[in-house]
């Protein structure tokens, strides 16, 4: 089971973790006003962990309740927490920044919503 701040926010449906980009954050010199060739580093790349998945509930109302639980954590952006994936890998001191629905709610046997969630450090 995955978790954020020890809460199971995404366990209602399948979800996958996308590892963060590692290394330096590189920008073109031209992009910051230098009329010089090449790029430079602004420092270490910020850590962004993405989760792509689908929330699943029996009906619309229960799906909305799951989104409310997620929204409550988004409202706590100021506080950091530990994100843990299905296999026990942990990323510490992450802020839950965004929850992006990826298409409409789908209504079949279940009511479900695809999403992308983003955590920043």
């Amino acid at each position: 089971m995955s978790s954020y701040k020890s809460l199971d926010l995404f366990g209602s449906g399948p979800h996958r973790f996308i590892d963060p980009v590692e290394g330096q954050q590189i920008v073109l010199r031209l992009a910051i006003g230098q009329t010089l060739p090449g790029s430079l580093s602004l420092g270490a790349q910020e850590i962004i962990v993405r989760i792509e998945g689908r929330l699943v509930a029996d009906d619309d109302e229960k799906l909305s309740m799951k989104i409310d639980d997620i929204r409550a954590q988004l409202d706590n952006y100021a506080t950091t927490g530990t994100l843990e994936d299905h296999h026990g890998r942990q990323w510490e001191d992450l802020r839950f920044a965004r929850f992006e629905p990826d298409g409409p709610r789908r209504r079949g046997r279940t009511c479900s919503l695809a999403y992308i969630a983003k955590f920043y450090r």
Partner: protein
Amino acid sequence: MLALRPNSVTLDSLPLEHVAHIIIDRAAESLIEEWDDTGPHAAFVDVAQQRTTIKVTHTVETGALAGFAVPAPPALGASVTLTFETALAGGDGARRRITASAVVTALKHDVTASLTTRTITLIAASASGTSDPIAIEEV
């Protein structure tokens, strides 16, 4: 669902004679398949949109080409109510009446030396979006 030689077939209350069979097929029009990080197999499958297709095949009297009580078959795009009765063994036991609201999407004729048939293809529509467009009741 397959109904061989169904009885009392009507389209918008107009009788349709010499019906050989009615086929009702269902297929996923929008399939959700999701995998998670635990392994190679799909962890979630659901059908978010489905299509119910009805094919009514009836024989047409040679030379008349008017198997309906009215001169012409339904027009493409016409919204009609299809009803018919059928039983598992073709007898009177456990008879069912099937009713479907549907839209005509194709008319096709097949002509052989001895037989002319017309197949009317319809796509069933649910008034609410949630209820099954095919209603089955005991007669």
